[in-house]
């Protein structure tokens, strides 16, 4: 019969109970029985009611194990267990006789802890109650037992040293976590130090330290269990918590050195509030409704400017006076805050009010909206350009179509702006990164930000973050020298990293500059030659040599310290940037510093383009890149030896680029004075593009070119034009490079 194994297991367990030395269940024995029960539970799958009984008995054992220290009456516990095992046997025998589910159901009490049929139900119930009470008693007792913990000075000293080390680790690992929120290893790496610090602090009577470590550990535990996501609010709280812990431990050390009568307590009321808020809304973003706009007093307490008690007193005072005064005024008069602090709080409140009138939108809907508007633009242009409409003489139709165009343009402008956000947040993340990395590296580095309000498509923000972080890491680790080195070179001890953002020629440009070592030409060239990446005979310009660091062979082949300045991964950075249709350039002076200039296309969807014709082909030039259009005179055309053809534009000689030549097209006109010249801006210079005709300005929807064509120089993408045909969008800088290559 299939039930044989089950019956055997149960009988075996009964025997085990009978042969026990004493009528006391110790932890290990309980464990053994738990394992036996696991097997029984599995084997009892065919007899649900028996399986449930076994499960309940198992839960009962687990309860015993967890509350073991509180058990006063071991005899009763054992008796309860024994009865439970006995019942299982009875049930098993009945099954054997009558075959299957002809068993009496379990009695009505539904406390999962002790639901075992027959007469043992009540015993277990009483027992469970007793355990609960004893657990509470024990917890109360522990409070008094605290005194007998250790008060050893040398232990405290060790603790301080080790705890501070751990906290430094936490800071580095938190950044790893921020970048790779899905990596459980990083969560563990941050969780463990807090857990360890909490553990030892408990032994040394360091209550405040223990409590704080415990709160932070809890938060991280929730992340470990996937209950909470890794939000930036969480990261900030953990970082600030680590700072507070550091301060507490520092105070402890001062006290031990006899320096100050400093209490161990650091005011963490603000931190606790933030943790509470996080509990209410783990996504860390929070929808701010009207009612959530904070009062000035709350803001001041939250920011740690004043204590809760101070606020309460002031509130009482303010309400007592006739007429009731504003809390800000009261606090200032009492000397608890400065006017500046109140005005800052007011500003915060104002921004919250504007937040309260904003809503959250699923970004997918936003993307759909922008796409639809793009399609609308195309369709509208197609209508506009249809011969029938072109030939229309009716005034009303003409007016209506104009109106349509106006509305569509505005709609398109609005929808694009919905997706643009200032780069400020990214910059702030990066400046915190600099601060934390430099601390970990033992260097002093200041940060300067320029152009935080520069807007960038929100879809790009996450994409560009990683390559930029790489560059910052490099700047901190290899660019800026150690304080000692800097002093030896006559530089100020603190290094400087500058982050700059601005729009230029259809691109968002982000510069990361440091005033550190700069790159060493010679070393780079040597490495490259050694790794057979360049021909030693080749004559390379300085710019070419520096660009070598982007070659895969160079970065991966070397140890980080060898190529003075930059480390592993520059080829990865370059690839990542180029994947976003961006570019990266270097400017560096050995001994003075290095600047990385990265640029990314402004928007991903729709651009304002100038349609030009070369021969029979049409191309699109982003209007943001266009400086000027002109028909040059014969006189303005110059041919300079060793420099090529130039056009005199308002006194400046700018090189001429014959587009038909670059693209192998038969042009309508070859002479500049018979054609049109479009003066365009590249990244750092301007040139003249020769075209046959300007067709007109149009808003075009950018469509990708597909993998095979993505890296074609001079072309930054494809676009759908008014008549539905596809045109190529020109990239000025790429064209410049192409023309130089051809000339060489």
């Amino acid at each position, binding site marked *: 019969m299939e039930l044989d194994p089950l019956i055997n297991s149960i009988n075996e367990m009964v025997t085990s109970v009978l042969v026990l030395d004493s009528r006391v269940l110790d932890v290990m024995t309980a464990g053994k029985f738990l394992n036996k029960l696991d097997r029984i539970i599995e084997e009892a799958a065919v007899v649900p009611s028996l399986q449930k009984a076994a499960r309940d008995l198992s839960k009962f054992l687990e309860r015993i*194990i967890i509350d073991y220290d509180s058990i006063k009456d071991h005899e009763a516990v054992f008796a309860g267990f024994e009865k439970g095992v006995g019942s299982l046997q009875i049930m098993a025998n009945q099954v054997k006789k009558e075959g299957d589910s002809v068993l009496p159901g379990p009695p009505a009490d539904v406390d999962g802890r002790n639901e075992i049929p027959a007469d043992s139900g009540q015993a277990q119930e009483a027992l469970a109650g007793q355990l609960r009470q004893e657990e509470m008693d024990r917890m109360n007792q522990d409070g008094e037992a605290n005194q007998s913990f250790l008060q050893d000075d040398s*232990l405290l000293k060790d603790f301080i040293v080790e705890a501070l080390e751990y906290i430094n680790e936490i800071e580095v690992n938190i950044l790893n976590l921020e970048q790779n929120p899905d990596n459980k290893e990083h969560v563990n790496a941050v969780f463990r130090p807090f857990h*360890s610090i*909490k553990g030892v602090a408990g*032994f040394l009577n360091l209550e405040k330290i223990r409590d704080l470590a415990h709160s932070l550990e809890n938060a991280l535990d929730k992340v470990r269990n996937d209950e909470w996501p890794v939000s930036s609010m969480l990261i900030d709280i953990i970082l600030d918590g680590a700072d507070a812990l550091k301060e507490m431990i520092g105070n402890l050390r001062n006290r031990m050195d006899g320096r100050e009568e400093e209490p161990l307590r650091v005011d963490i009321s603000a931190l606790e509030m933030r943790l509470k808020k996080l509990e209410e809304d783990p996504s860390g973003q929070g929808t701010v409704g009207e009612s959530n706009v904070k009062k000035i007093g709350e803001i001041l307490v939250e920011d740690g400017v004043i204590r809760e008690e101070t606020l309460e007193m002031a509130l009482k005072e303010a309400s007592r006076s006739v007429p009731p005064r504003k809390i800000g005024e009261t606090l200032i008069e009492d000397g608890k805050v400065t006017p500046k602090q109140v005005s800052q709080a007011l500003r915060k409140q104002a921004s919250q009010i504007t937040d309260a009138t904003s809503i959250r939108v699923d970004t997918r809907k936003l993307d759909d909206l922008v796409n639809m508007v793009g399609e609308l633009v195309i369709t509208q242009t197609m209508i506009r350009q249809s011969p029938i409409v072109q030939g229309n003489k009716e005034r009303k139709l003409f007016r209506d179509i104009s109106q349509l165009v106006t509305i569509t343009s505005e709609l398109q402008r609005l929808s694009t702006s919905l997706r643009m956000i200032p780069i400020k947040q990214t910059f702030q993340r990066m400046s915190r990164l600099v601060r934390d990395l430099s601390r970990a590296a033992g260097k002093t580095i200041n940060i300067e930000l320029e152009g935080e309000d520069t807007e960038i498509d929100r879809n790009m923000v996450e994409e560009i973050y990683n390559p930029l972080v790489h560059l910052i890491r490099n700047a901190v680790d290899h660019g800026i020298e150690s304080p000692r080195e800097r002093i030896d070179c006559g530089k100020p001890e603190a290094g400087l990293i500058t982050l700059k953002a601005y729009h230029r020629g259809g691109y968002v440009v982000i510069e990361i500059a440091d005033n550190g070592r700069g790159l060493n030409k010679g070393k780079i060239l040597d490495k490259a030659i050694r790794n057979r990446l360049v021909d030693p005979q080749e004559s390379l310009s300085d710019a070419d040599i520096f660009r070598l660091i982007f070659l895969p062979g160079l970065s991966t082949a070397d140890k980080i310290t060898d190529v003075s300045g930059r480390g592993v991964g520059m080829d990865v950075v370059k690839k990542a940037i180029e994947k976003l249709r961006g570019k990266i350039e270097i400017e560096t002076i050995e001994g003075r510093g290095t600047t990385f200039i990265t640029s990314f296309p402004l928007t991903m969807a729709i651009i304002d383009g100038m349609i030009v014709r070369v021969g029979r082909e049409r191309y699109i030039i982003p209007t943001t890149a266009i400086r000027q259009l002109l028909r040059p005179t014969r006189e303005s055309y110059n041919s300079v030896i060793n420099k090529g053809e130039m056009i005199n534009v308002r006194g400046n000689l700018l090189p001429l680029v014959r587009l038909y030549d670059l693209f192998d097209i038969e042009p309508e006109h070859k002479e500049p004075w018979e054609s049109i010249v479009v003066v365009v801006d590249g990244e750092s210079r301007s040139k003249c593009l020769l075209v046959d005709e300007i067709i007109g300005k149009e808003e075009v929807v950018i469509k990708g070119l597909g993998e095979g064509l993505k890296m074609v120089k001079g072309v930054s993408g494809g676009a759908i034009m008014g008549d539905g045909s596809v045109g190529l969008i020109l990239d000025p800088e790429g064209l410049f490079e192409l023309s130089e290559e051809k000339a060489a």
Partner: protein
Amino acid sequence: MVDKKIKILVVDDFATMRKVIRNLLKQIGYDNVIEAENGQVAFRTLKSQKVDFVISDWNMPTMSGLELLRAIRADQELSKTPFLMVTAEALKENVVEAVKAGVNNYIVKPFTAEVLEEKIAKITDSL
């Protein structure tokens, strides 16, 4: 009679914690104490010298307390080694897993020397 000369191996990745336990053990008369900073080092130590008792933390890098316990119970030579697990309040649920894997008992941080003595005695008494 409890034998206070037994060799006890204390395993924890936090050096100060190992010191704390060592101090507590000294207070109750156990002087023969050696240390290991994670499960791997502990296991190697166990294989290379005779250890009478293991007190181990749970959450450690490289090889956790649970993994160490399992390795010990699976090893012919070491399988009967008494093992006391050190755990923090919040992780009590892990205790069940540990008990099923064969731990002799567990002790919750922070604990006093008295409690430690009790726990050790309970285990050594029942051997």
